[in-house]
């Protein structure tokens, strides 16, 4: 048995165990107050530490473990450490080795991730180390084995690192369920969460603790305020688009004046384009690298190594560098494009100056005129320490279904006990029994109205316990564990024998390529040669313009709080804080039309280029404005207003068509919008994508595992077919219900449309004009226009076919 909580180290003592004290002293270090406080409160059942980057968070998390094992060595697993990144787990293993060796402790520290060799993984289950470092996915897998109880026997502490990056995602929901399961195996387990600066620590605490237990929050000294400014550029930013390439001379200058600069972009495609142009301008050949999630692992590791060795002056990157991996001495962070979200901005800025009590330094580069406004608003919010965050709804049920299946793999279970256990996980605290039973039924029988599978149920009930009917199914369930569903991607390699791997692109993007097309990959222009055994073959192509790389763009939506700040800024009589070009743009908008306001909806209509246009400034974020575009154009089509297409940004939707909208107010009738959502949107591609994710997580369809894909896929069919079939024959099915729930808060984001509708309360200002307005003009330059489908799609197919027939002389 494990010693009771805090038995090894006496809480309330201000003194470190001698060996640890000596280690600090030998280095001339003094522990931070919050590190000592973590030791003092080591026996708290749950404790959340919020500390800025560089505050020695991780050591604070591990100190109680080291103290306990130093005073009272024992075999077996003592502490489980969970991080969102494999790389972080490996990093921590190396970092822990230093104090463990320095303190002369006999402690085994190992990591276990998808990259760990099968042999090592088997051994770890039978003979676990004192400290095991892992990810939520690997933990879920460990818990699905029959010997989980033996592996985790004696476990005393769980540390969840970077908990702010996990808690509001499906991975976090999965982790919360895993913690509940761990608690079931080893009651009395202590939980510790480590978080960067967040807006709502109590929400994180609720996520961490066993519900309804309390979870105190320990706030470390946040350190000095960061030094953030907007980068002033000689040429003004363009009217629309992203990228920030107008700022390259100033960015290069900033790189020159700092040791190491991180340049964050919001999308991978933008990072690629910026990196290329930065190199073209980099006449003195400063060592600059690129790092993002689509690059091959070898490529990324090379950049990471160079970074750690201090060999790079700058790295152009995306969110993959957001988390707490220590890759060197960064003294400047540049954010290109609006940060969309103040919390992310503050966390990114924390990357600079990894030394406690030194201010971080950051520059913002708005990529277009509107982003200037957004950046100024974000700066104000950051200075006011006003972080944002959307409240998260109840835990998704597809994750719960996966948890039930994984639970069945570990051995027979009692439904009542599992329900009680699941409700101790924060995100599932409010789960109704009815919903749990529907999830269990889906796991067991498929949950179809037509009870077709009674003979072949996946789970069967015997002697009051649920068992896996066919033990072979366990292998399949384990292979499908995890909540990250990527889009299908294809590997990219240089053509030729043993061609170097360059990275991955989305299958959908690959399908649009024809031989000779060029795109950017890892900063170089490559030419598409062909597809071979599911690998995209390319050759290097110098001196040609790339087609825009559209792969894997993460499009964040501007947060509600940031949108509110922007609307508040619009109320000002003048804007002395804005650059002159932007201030005069807003003033002109006020003169010819009006500026949007928080409690009313501005709708402009005007003719342009032979078409009628309508702009609705909803400020509801990109996803919601996109949904609004779909719903409005559908309604307009029914009313004979002949819409042709629309484009959405974070703040507005622009619709164009053949007819003039004389009275837009009825289009925004909340009842109609909701009804449109219920009927028409169900058939939409967004719903199908959401369904696919839910179906994979819930185990209805198998994942495409890397290396398991075959060229011929007659045997597999698209999840769209399943979606359509369910809608036709079983519209009340639980998976459709889950799809609706997830789409509304995710890609469809109807919640923010509702928020906008209640905010404007029917107050719609229609301004009819004879030309494009200043605020609307940039929208004409936006990419991502959506054509209104219907008869149009078949026409497109037929026109293309006719052209090809004609070219082939077959017309």
């Amino acid at each position, binding site marked *: 048995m494990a010693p009771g909580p805090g038995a090894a180290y006496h809480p309330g003592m201000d003194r470190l165990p001698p060996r640890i004290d000596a280690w600090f002293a030998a280095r001339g270090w003094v522990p931070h107050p919050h590190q000592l406080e973590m030791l003092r409160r080591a026996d708290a059942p749950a404790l959340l530490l919020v500390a800025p980057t560089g505050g020695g968070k991780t050591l604070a998390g591990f100190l109680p473990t080291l103290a306990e094992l130093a005073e009272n060595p024992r075999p077996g697993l003592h502490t489980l450490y969970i991080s969102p990144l494999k790389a972080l787990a490996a990093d921590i293993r190396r970092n822990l080795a230093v104090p463990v060796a320095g303190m002369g402790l006999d402690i085994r520290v190992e990591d276990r991730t998808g990259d760990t060799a099968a042999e090592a993984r088997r051994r770890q289950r039978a003979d676990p180390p004192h400290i095991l470092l892992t990810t939520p996915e690997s933990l879920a897998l460990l818990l699905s084995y029959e010997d989980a109880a033996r592996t985790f026997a004696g476990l005393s502490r769980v540390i969840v690192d970077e908990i702010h990056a996990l808690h509001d995602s499906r991975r976090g929901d999965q982790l919360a369920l895993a913690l509940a399961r761990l608690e079931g195996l080893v009651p009395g387990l202590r939980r510790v969460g480590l978080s960067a600066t967040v807006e709502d620590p109590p929400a994180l605490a609720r996520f961490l603790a066993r519900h309804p237990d309390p979870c105190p929050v320990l706030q470390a000294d946040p350190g000095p305020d960061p030094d953030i400014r907007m980068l002033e550029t000689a040429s003004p930013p363009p009217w629309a688009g992203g990228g920030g390439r107008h700022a390259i001379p100033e960015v290069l200058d900033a790189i020159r004046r700092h040791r190491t600069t991180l340049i964050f972009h919001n999308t991978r495609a933008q990072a690629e384009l910026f990196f290329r142009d930065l190199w073209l301008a980099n006449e003195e050949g400063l060592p600059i690298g690129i790092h993002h999630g689509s690059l091959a692992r070898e490529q990324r590791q090379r950049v990471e190594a160079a970074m750690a060795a201090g060999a790079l002056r700058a790295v152009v990157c995306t969110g993959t560098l957001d988390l707490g991996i220590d890759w060197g001495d960064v003294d400047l962070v540049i954010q290109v494009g609006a940060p969309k979200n103040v919390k992310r901005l503050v966390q990114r800025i924390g990357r600079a100056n990894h030394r406690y009590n030194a201010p971080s330094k950051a520059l913002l580069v708005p990529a277009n005129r509107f982003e200037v406004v957004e950046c100024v608003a974000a700066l104000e919010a950051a200075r006011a320490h006003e972080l944002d965050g959307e409240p998260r709804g109840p835990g998704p049920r597809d994750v719960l279904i996966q948890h039930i299946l994984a639970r069945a793999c570990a051995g027979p279970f009692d439904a009542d006990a599992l329900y009680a256990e699941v409700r101790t996980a924060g995100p599932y605290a409010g789960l109704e029994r009815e919903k749990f039973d529907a999830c269990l039924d889906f796991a067991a*029988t*498929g949950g*179809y109205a*037509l009870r*077709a*599978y009674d*003979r*072949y149920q*996946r789970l069967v009930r015997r002697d009051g316990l649920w068992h896996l*009917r*066919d033990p*072979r*199914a366990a292998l*399949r369930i384990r292979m499908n564990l995890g909540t990250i569903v990527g889009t*299908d991607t*294809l590997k990219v390699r240089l053509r030729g024998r043993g061609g170097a791997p360059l990275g991955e692109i989305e*299958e959908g993007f*690959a*399908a*649009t*390529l*024809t*031989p000779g097309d060029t795109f950017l990959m890892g900063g170089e222009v490559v030419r598409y040669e*062909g*597809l071979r055994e*599911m690998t995209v073959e390319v050759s290097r192509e110098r001196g040609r313009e790339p087609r825009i790389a559209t792969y894997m763009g993460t499009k964040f939506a501007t947060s509600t709080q940031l949108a509110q700040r922007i609307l508040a800024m619009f109320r000002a009589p003048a804007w002395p804080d804005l650059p002159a070009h932007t201030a005069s743009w807003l003033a002109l908008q006020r003169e010819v039309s009006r500026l949007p306001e928080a409690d009313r909806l501005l709708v402009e209509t005007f003719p342009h280029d032979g078409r009628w246009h309508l702009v609705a400034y909803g400020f509801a974020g990109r996803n919601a404005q996109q949904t609004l575009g779909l719903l409005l154009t559908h309604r307009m089509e029914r009313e004979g207003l002949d819409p042709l297409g629309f484009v959405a940004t974070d703040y507005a939707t622009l619709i164009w068509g053949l007819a003039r909208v004389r009275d837009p107010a009825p289009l925004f009738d909340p009842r109609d919008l909701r009804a449109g959502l219920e009927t028409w949107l169900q058939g939409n591609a967004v719903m199908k994508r959401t369904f696919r994710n839910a179906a994979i997580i819930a*185990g*209805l*369809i*198998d994942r495409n595992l890397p290396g398991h*894909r075959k*060229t*011929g*896929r*007659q*045997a*597999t*069919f*698209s999840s*769209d*077919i*399943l979606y359509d*079939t*369910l809608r*036709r*024959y*079983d519209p009340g*099915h639980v998976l459709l219900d889950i799809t609706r729930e997830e789409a509304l808060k995710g890609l469809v984001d109807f919640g923010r449309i509702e928020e906008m509708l209640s905010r404007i309360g029917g107050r719609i200002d229609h301004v009819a004009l004879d030309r494009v307005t200043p605020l609307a003009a940039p929208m004409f330059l936006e990419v991502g226009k959506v054509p209104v489908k219907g008869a149009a*799609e*078949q026409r*497109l*197919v*037929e026109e*293309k*076919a006719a052209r*090809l*027939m004609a*070219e*082939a002389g*077959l017309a």
Partner: protein
Amino acid sequence: MNGYALTLAGAALVALPSGALWWPERRLLAVADLHLGRSERAARRGGTLLPPYETEDTLARLDAEIGRLAPATVLCLGDSFDDGDAAACLAERHVLWITRMQAGRRWLWVAGNHDPGPPGLGGSHLAECREGPLVFRHVALAGAAGDGSGEVSGHYHPKARLAGRARACFLCDDRRLILPAYGTYTGGLDICAPALASLVGPKGLALILGPRVVAVPLQGLRAGVSASSASR
């Protein structure tokens, strides 16, 4: 009718938007790869529990087609069942439904790789079948027939990508016609895959399904070699 009229070895045929083939002169309707009982088979073998509605859906579409055309002969071109047991495990009402559709007409089951044996339902079971100038078999034979006959087959579930959308299609040249899969739970093989490229030459056509069947030269489609894992 929104089908596409073509001639194969002198036989005037219509490729229908549903993926079925209609031979008006002989009043013959051919469908390939129904894969009835696919979800039942997956469940039986410990796989995932797919929505058990595909047999219903496939039969409903076939029934509507039969009602519209009143064929004298219905020819199922192999892989009508997802495996040998799938026919035996068919629900009683589906057996009756098939029997009802078979009434008053000739019904031929051609053997496929999934269902090599007779299904134990009405109709005749054949390895392959010759009707006038046409030979119907499940998998196309490589090489020329040499006797001037035309070959009609299924098996590959061909799909083509046009204007960014992958759709099921017929493939044909002057000697051969490959049907798309008719079953609801079926995926597809891109026409650029080597297996299909070697069967139908560059002078062939893809007849792409949709509200109307659209013919596209294979040469034009294959020039834009796309991901060979197209899915609907």
